[in-house]
């Protein structure tokens, strides 16, 4: 071939003028065709990113923001609760979605004999157990006669403290912060506990909180 590089050394030049391109500037290395290609790609890329990135952020945004403010919900006067049995109460955990946002919790007074105070944690005046099973989130029910929480979905069983006695759950039942204001028991945010009932930020069901496992299930910005 006549224009193969070996026979036509001018084609190897890195300067457009050296390659005999008409209208080349002195010292120019990028042909106008290549420049236009690059410009078209860059402009197309910027235009695509201009709508794709905001849309992506829009969809992923809820992962990174905590939109649920702390709310203290009264569940009745102190006299309604004892320290050796649970009383069911309904609280609202998600606003504006009707009954779907409500959940049952079980409340009892802090029991000085049975409940241990964990070092470094302020003890809660009341124990409020979440009914969200720590396996996959089904609603557990408290059986007063057996003093156990039973999950109807996959057979998880929890003891009086919410600790796992059997079945697939990976950690004890979640709890809620409690306080007493003007004689009324109030329920605050959810928190999770590990098998020693040490407090963690709220996790999803099925997230382990013991040993090395806890590092595979990080705390999330949403909670």
């Amino acid at each position, binding site marked *: 071939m006549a224009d193969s590089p070996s026979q036509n050394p001018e084609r190897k030049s890195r300067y457009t003028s050296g390659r005999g391109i008409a209208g080349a500037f002195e010292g120019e290395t990028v042909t106008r065709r290549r420049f236009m290609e690059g410009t078209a790609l860059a402009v197309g890329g910027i235009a695509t990113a201009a709508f794709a990135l905001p849309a992506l952020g829009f*969809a*992923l945004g*809820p*992962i990174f923001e*905590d*939109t*649920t403010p702390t709310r203290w919900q009264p569940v009745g006067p102190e006299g309604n609760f004892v320290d050796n049995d649970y009383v069911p109460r309904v609280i609202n*955990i*998600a*606003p*504006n*979605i*009707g009954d*779907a*946002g409500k959940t049952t919790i079980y409340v009892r007074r802090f029991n000085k004999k049975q409940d241990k105070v964990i070092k470094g944690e302020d003890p809660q005046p009341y124990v409020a157990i979440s009914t969200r099973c720590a396996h*996959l*989130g*089904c*609603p557990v029910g408290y059986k007063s006669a057996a003093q156990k929480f039973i999950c109807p*979905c996959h057979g998880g069983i929890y003891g009086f403290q919410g600790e796992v006695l059997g079945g697939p759950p990976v950690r004890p039942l979640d709890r809620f912060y409690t306080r007493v204001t003007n004689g009324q028991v109030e329920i605050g945010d959810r928190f999770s506990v590990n098998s020693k009932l040490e407090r963690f930020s*709220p*996790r*999803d*069901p*099925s*997230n382990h909180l013991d040993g090395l496992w806890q590092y*595979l*299930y*990080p705390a*999330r910005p*949403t*909670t």
Partner: protein
Amino acid sequence: MPPPIPKFLRPSPPRPGKGSNGRNGRNGAGDGGVSTAAPTVKDRAEEATASTVGWLDERSGLSPFLRGFLYRKVPKGTNWYYTLGSATMFAFLSQAVTGVFLAMYYEPDPTRAYESASHITNDVFLGEFVRGMHKWGSSVMIILIFLHMGRTFVFGAYKYPRELNWIIGVILVVLTLLMGLTGYLLPFDQRSFWATVVAVNINASGPIVGPYLADFLRAGSEFGTTTIPRFYAIHMLLVPGLIAALIGAHLYLVAKLGTTAPPWLKAQKKDLMKEEI
């Protein structure tokens, strides 16, 4: 003397290099010259379909493509099992059509979803039928897509050069299952609510990314106001668009590469060759 024919009904002049005036008249066919007899309205009506198709074909060049696509040769031994893919596609089309009409009545709002779904079933004319088609059709589509996958696997039709089509097919299976998952929430009764709670928490059980994935699906840490709209948008906009596009790619590759003969046919051919020798 008859009245003058309107201009749009007059025969067009012959094309260069053509003897007669072609598509527009049978009157001058074969005689090599321009005929003086005009076509009647009846003649034109009879040719309306052919001339419309011809008009489209001349401007789009579709007929070689369609001929190659619809009249392609298939191997000997092609049988009813080869229709499972088309059956799956028709199940998808049925889902798409019934889904579009369900969307006219459904309200993706946590406080209205159950009411509007009940309204479709109980009050809307044929609503029970259309919703039933969509509900049962979803199961039909899942069954068909797995039968199609099994047929492809058992017949060895995933082998070279059709690996890419297998990969596209696997993505289609995943997307179809995603349709099932996101659609299950929408009636918003007790079953669909708790099934979705469990499904989202199964996603949350994945290490590291799981909790974030669950947050993405719920649009937050709890099942909230925007969870149903999110599932609804994924169910009716995002995934169906992807499925339609990938079905296009899937069909293109089928037409391009052709289908495989059933495996037992090769064995017969070997026997035949032995006999011939």
